[in-house]
């Protein structure tokens, strides 16, 4: 369990993190989302005692980070894949971490096996690809078999097999009752991994809810219907007071509706349905909706389809 209480970090004039209060609970994967510059990294660094909060408090299982004896046995973190000395071999990197926390030597070999780096254990880390560096970082997080795990952008640089692996690793760690806290920019990946979300923007807490609630609150959900008896169904639904949207390709959509109710109505009137599927917007859409105000570097995304033609033409005429 990680508890944040009024956590604040100020750099000069700029509030990087502003009065954050939330709790990361065990047994689930908690996703940590926010646009670039929202304060995610600063928050994670304060959790690990690397940065000192301007105000407020972070507690790991009730203790301050620097009160933990052998902290790697409580909390393992992957902060960034390159937080290691490139001239040191993967094995020695893990060995020095293990020794500093009194973790037995053979555990090093185990985590190397776990992340699949055994064949390159004696090679220097600077020759590693981003994905291999990431695996080494993950090995470091698992080293102390901690009850709490923290991952910052864990899939960076991994190939699909690696992404699949880390996703299932995080889920199974949570299923064992551990606390798993993971930040990522990849919404589609988060949608598959996280159970709970903490969203921040410009250093403030924007949301702290379950994945399902987050999507439900921040986007449109609807039921998609296909039927060979379109007119009859339309009639039935309208009489029942259900608003139906007809889409171009012959399907019907009912906003916010419950598929159960529509299914019952159709059955009552002996209408055959070929599809009755509840649809929900993606996490990405919900996230965009929520954080629209707090993004630092805006690209010209307002009118993407037309834009390139326009800028291509402008200078070609002259040259």
């Amino acid at each position, binding site marked *: 369990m990680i508890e944040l209480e009024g956590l604040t970090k100020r750099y000069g004039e700029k509030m990087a993190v502003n009065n954050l209060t939330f709790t990361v609970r065990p047994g689930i994967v908690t996703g940590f989302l926010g646009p670039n510059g929202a304060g995610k990294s600063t928050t994670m660094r304060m959790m690990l005692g*690397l940065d000192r909060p301007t105000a407020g408090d972070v507690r790991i299982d009730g203790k301050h980070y620097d009160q*933990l004896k052998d*902290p790697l046995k409580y909390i393992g973190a992957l*902060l960034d894949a390159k*937080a290691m000395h490139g*001239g040191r071999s993967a094995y020695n990197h893990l060995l020095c*971490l293990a020794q*500093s926390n009194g973790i037995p030597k053979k555990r090093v070999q185990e985590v190397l096996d776990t992340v699949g780096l055994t064949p390159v254990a004696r090679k220097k880390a600077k020759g590693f690809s981003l994905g291999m560096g990431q695996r080494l970082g993950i090995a470091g997080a698992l080293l102390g078999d901690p009850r709490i795990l923290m991952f910052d952008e864990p899939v960076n640089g991994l190939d699909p097999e690696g992404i699949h692996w880390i996703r299932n690793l995080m889920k199974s760690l949570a299923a064992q009752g551990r606390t798993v806290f993971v930040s990522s920019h990849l919404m589609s990946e988060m949608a598959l991994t996280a159970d709970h979300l903490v969203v921040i923007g410009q250093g403030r807490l924007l949301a702290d809810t379950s994945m399902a609630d987050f999507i439900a609150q921040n986007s449109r959900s609807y039921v998609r219907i296909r039927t060979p008896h379109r007119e009859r169904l339309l009639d039935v639904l309208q009489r029942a007071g259900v608003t139906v949207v007809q889409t171009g390709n012959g399907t019907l959509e009912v906003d916010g509706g419950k598929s159960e109710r529509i299914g019952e109505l159709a059955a009552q009137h002996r209408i055959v349905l070929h599809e009755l599927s509840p649809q929900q917007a993606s996490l990405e859409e919900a996230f965009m909706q929520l954080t629209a105000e707090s993004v630092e570097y805006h690209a010209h995304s307002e009118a993407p389809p037309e834009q390139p033609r326009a800028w291509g033409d402008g200078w070609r005429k002259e040259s």
Partner: protein
Amino acid sequence: MATGQVIRSEWTKIRSVASTVWTLSLAVVVTIALGMLISLLSKNEFDNMDRADQLSFDPTFISFAGMSLGQLAMIVFGVLVVSNEYSTGMIRTSLAAVPQRGSFLFSKITVATGLALLVGLVTSFVTFFLGQAMLGEHGAYIGDEGVLRAVIGGGLYMTLIAMFSMGVAAMLRSPMLSLGILMPFFFLVSNILGNVPATKKIGRYLPDQAGSKIMQVVTPVDNDTPYGPWGGLGIMMLWVIAALAGGFVVLKRRDA
């Protein structure tokens, strides 16, 4: 947190990077080779020296002439041991593993100092004996008065230089910045300040000027230095303590 664990961890760190090996071996080779070369040249020049120079001829000190270059390698060693943590990003991993920053810095300095002391003493003795072999009949013996003190002092001097560099690197964090300041300072600035009459009185309180007195056995003729060999080493130690204290405060206060 048991300090023993952290010390073991730091030992793994220091022995598992190439820079440790090359900086220390460079310090050994340069100090010995240059010492031998200058000893040999001095022996051949001895008969051409004037009487005063012959009287204050210090064979022990001559054999340590390579120290002026060898100490630069020791500086690089000291700087890299500390600032590598920052330049590679390892510091975040290290401090997450050992959040007690005092314990972290203490262990790192202890391990690096121990290693530097070992290498320094070996270098100092080898340099002395090989240097005296070059000097032939003008050489000194280890049993002569003050000689053993000078030879052990040579090892201590190299160790203290490395420690001073560690403290500076802990304050500055960047290897380029630390080396950019320390190398020219010890190679040029300090020598100039120590030899120009106007600044000589201040120059001799600089860490290397003061510390190197420990390697002198024969006092120069016009000596007016207000401290002896151990006094000089003491001044150097004060510098080292100040640098390490500064480094500790910076590490403790600033975000990693």
